[in-house]
């Protein structure tokens, strides 16, 4: 799975730590998601999408 977390995060000038605090996970988890090492649960994907002010999960997470 590919994600656009880093891209949207940079757009909104949010650090990994800030995003992690917003969705109640560790900074390492955000880093893993950005690198495509870890696939999130539906709940976490939804929280991240909302935190990044996006409408749909598919906008942030792309299945390849």
């Amino acid at each position: 799975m590919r994600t656009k977390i880093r891209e949207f995060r940079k757009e909104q000038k949010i650090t990994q730590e800030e995003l992690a605090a917003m969705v109640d996970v560790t900074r390492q988890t955000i880093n893993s998601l950005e690198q495509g090492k870890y696939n999130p649960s539906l709940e976490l994907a939804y929280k991240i999408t909302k935190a990044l002010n996006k409408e749909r999960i598919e906008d942030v997470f792309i299945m390849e």
Partner: protein
Amino acid sequence: MASKKIVTKKAVMYRAVLVIVLIAAGLILNLYNIGSNDFFGYSTVGNFLIYIAFIMILVTAINYFKKKDKIIDERIEMIRYKAMTFTFMVSMFAAFAIMILDGINPITMRYSTFVSYAVCASLIFYVIAYKVIERKY
């Protein structure tokens, strides 16, 4: 499941209760002279339990005064689960190997010593597995 767990005063209270139970058990064993008189160099089993209790106090105090929030999220839970599964599998293979080795050359080690080695080995395997899996995910 994204969850955030923080080490709170409640957790410290549970540990305090466990420490009190360990010290009480140690004192009772010493009082009634129960258990081996040569237990891992701690003279008695009771003294060993009291020693473990003080180690727990030290570790809990260090964690408490660090005042660092410990976040357990879904990725960490997944890593823990995988590390536990790996440790369990290693334990099974080790048990099988020990059974065969015992059949070839009987193990004469004391039961308490053997179990303590087994527990330490399991913990070491768990930590190694955790670190390795953490790098992967």
